[in-house]
């Protein structure tokens, strides 16, 4: 009996945690698409979220695209089958990868935490704490415009998901190469964690012809 209730409670908190993570992805992807000017700024509207003004697309086709994408991601997170979500920005013409926004999703193992002892096990995180952490990442995405190279050509993007081998894969998803950037530069962004998940963010980008003027 008690086992069951515990199970249910866990299930609920997992669902809640997944919801937070997916919601974060939605806003993060929207912010990246806006900040990196993949879509024209007039396609976005401002929305209050995480105590910030976040820009969200109003373009119906993009909305439905993201929705389709994130519903599947949600399924994978719930099943614990996904480890990374990557947004790769590429040149439309030559398909060269210019930027790669990587979000690592780790499942926080309750038992492991207990093994670590009282020092390792964290207390239940409040919503406010999570919100602040997410806010910091969104802020960093916004701020990243300052150091990322200007995307001069027209760009599009692609979404990659790193899943377990046994994950269920709908028809919209294909096996792919990791779309790694040649000669990349990395910047690690902050991370946030909910009760069940920890999400890290890294942006890697192509150096371009950065070092030429120096010589």
């Amino acid at each position, binding site marked *: 009996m008690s086992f069951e209730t515990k199970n249910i409670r866990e299930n609920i908190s997992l669902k809640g945690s997944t919801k937070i993570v997916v919601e974060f992805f939605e806003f993060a992807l929207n912010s990246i698409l806006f900040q990196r000017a*993949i*879509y*024209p700024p*007039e*396609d976005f509207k401002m929305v209050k979220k995480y105590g910030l003004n976040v820009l969200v697309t109003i*373009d119906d*086709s*993009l909305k439905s*695209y993201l929705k*389709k*994408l994130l519903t599947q991601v949600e399924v994978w997170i719930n099943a614990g089958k996904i*480890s*990374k979500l*990557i947004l790769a920005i590429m040149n439309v013409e030559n398909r060269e990868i210019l930027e790669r926004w*990587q979000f*690592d999703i780790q499942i926080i193992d309750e038992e492991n935490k207990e093994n670590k002892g009282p020092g390792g096990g964290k207390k239940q995180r409040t919503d406010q704490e999570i919100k602040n952490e997410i806010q910091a990442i969104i802020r960093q995405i916004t701020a990243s415009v300052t*150091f990322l190279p200007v995307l001069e050509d*027209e*760009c*599009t*993007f*692609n*979404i*990659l*998901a*790193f*899943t*377990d*081998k046994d*994950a269920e*894969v709908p028809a*919209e*998803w*294909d*096996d*792919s*190469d*990791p*779309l*790694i950037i*040649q*000669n*990349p530069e*990395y*910047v*690690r962004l902050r991370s946030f964690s909910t009760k069940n998940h920890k999400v890290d963010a890294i942006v890697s980008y192509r*150096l371009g012809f*950065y*070092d*030429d003027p*120096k*010589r």
Partner: protein
Amino acid sequence: MKLTSPPSRAKSAKSVGGSPKTPIASQSDLFKIFKSCKKKSPKSIIKKEILKLDVIANDWICPATPSKGKKNKFQCDRFIPVRETMGEPSEQLRIPQRESGKEQYLNSNELEYQEKLAEACGVSLEKRILAFNLQPPSSQKDDLRQLYNQPMKLSTIQFKRRILTSPERVLDAPGLLDDYYLNLLDWSIKNMVAIGLDQCVYIWNADTGGVTSLERTNPSDYIASLSWSYNGDYLAVGTSDGDIQIWDVLKEQKIRSMLGHTARVGVITWNKHIISSGCKDGNIWHHDTRVAQHKVAELIDHTSEVYGLKWNSNGDQLASGGNDNRVNIWDARASTPRLTKNNHVAAVKALAWCPWQSHILASGGGSYDRHIHFWNVSSDARVKSIDTGSQVTSIIWSKDFKELLSTHGFPNHNMTIWSYPTLNKTADIPAHESRILHSTISPDNQVVATAASDENLKIWRVFQNARKNEKSKNSDKENTGSVFGGCTIR
């Protein structure tokens, strides 16, 4: 100095690594020096001190110092807290190019490199990498911005011409039969407008305003159709009892009568010396006006009354429409239709060939259909369609403006001008109080006449072309179509 140095140093180190021009000898020397330095390097307590020194030395000695040794000591910077885990695949890639034992080096490091790369990029061999294969929506909305950035004046002034929405002249046409299935109005190349009012044909001279009528002898039938010959000398008249008469207009007398149809002739049209006639029984006949045996061809396909007939400008294709909702295209010498289109869901009377694209035909359907379809006759395809919202009774193309005018019946009784091929509505004129039955265009392509069941014949100057008028004034004052004298028929 210390604060700002790490990012810039990282860059310089990179640039050094990537320089192919640096001579190998000097570099390997430096390597040795560097290695020896490294061995002597003091312990961690004074690491910071060394760090500072390193920075300076780096700036001082030579920008060609490889950054490899440094990396071990200096593992984090402002941007990357843990550089080790990130790996620097680019650097490793380049090293073999500098070394003489090229392949060996690469092989020994390849696995490690792969692992590091995998780690850095999050690739695990146990995992699957999946790409969302739906294409993200295109971001090409810049075109739109360009559109808005264009100066507004240009687009509006150039493309929006003023169209007079009031008739230039209204003539009384009493006794005009309110029958959609007749063709009772035609404008000749000699600027004469012929209209059939019940049993009589009246000819209105648009130059002088004079009205004449054709003296018909047997008033038992009524006029069902009329059409001017191409030179404007003769008028062909189809009657309700199946007769086709040819009248010499100047002499005001009937030249010949071509009998044969058993029912009323709802439409006739000329193609040089050939008259094509559409009959109530669904047959289309070609009559050669020069020979005694006038009937030269019989086109049988329509199952119901034919009242739309138009030859294209070359005279090699005939379009027909009828009460069986069908549009047929006939080659001039063929007796079976080349194309049959059944897209209309109501009777087809309005037919018109595009004057500048000879393979485009516009056809308009009746009150249940309300559509104008555009056909590419050579490719057999429907090019475009408009839902006009009311019964289409006739279509006229304007060559000068690349537009077409459609007249309508129930429910709007209006007259609409569309641009082609964009199919934007250029003007919408509430023309008559009841359905517009017939329309025709003047020989100078500027004026349109419409006749409606409210017994009015209205003249509209909707395609006024100022430039053309000036030219014609200068060259030839007689050729007008712009001067109207008299006022009423009858």
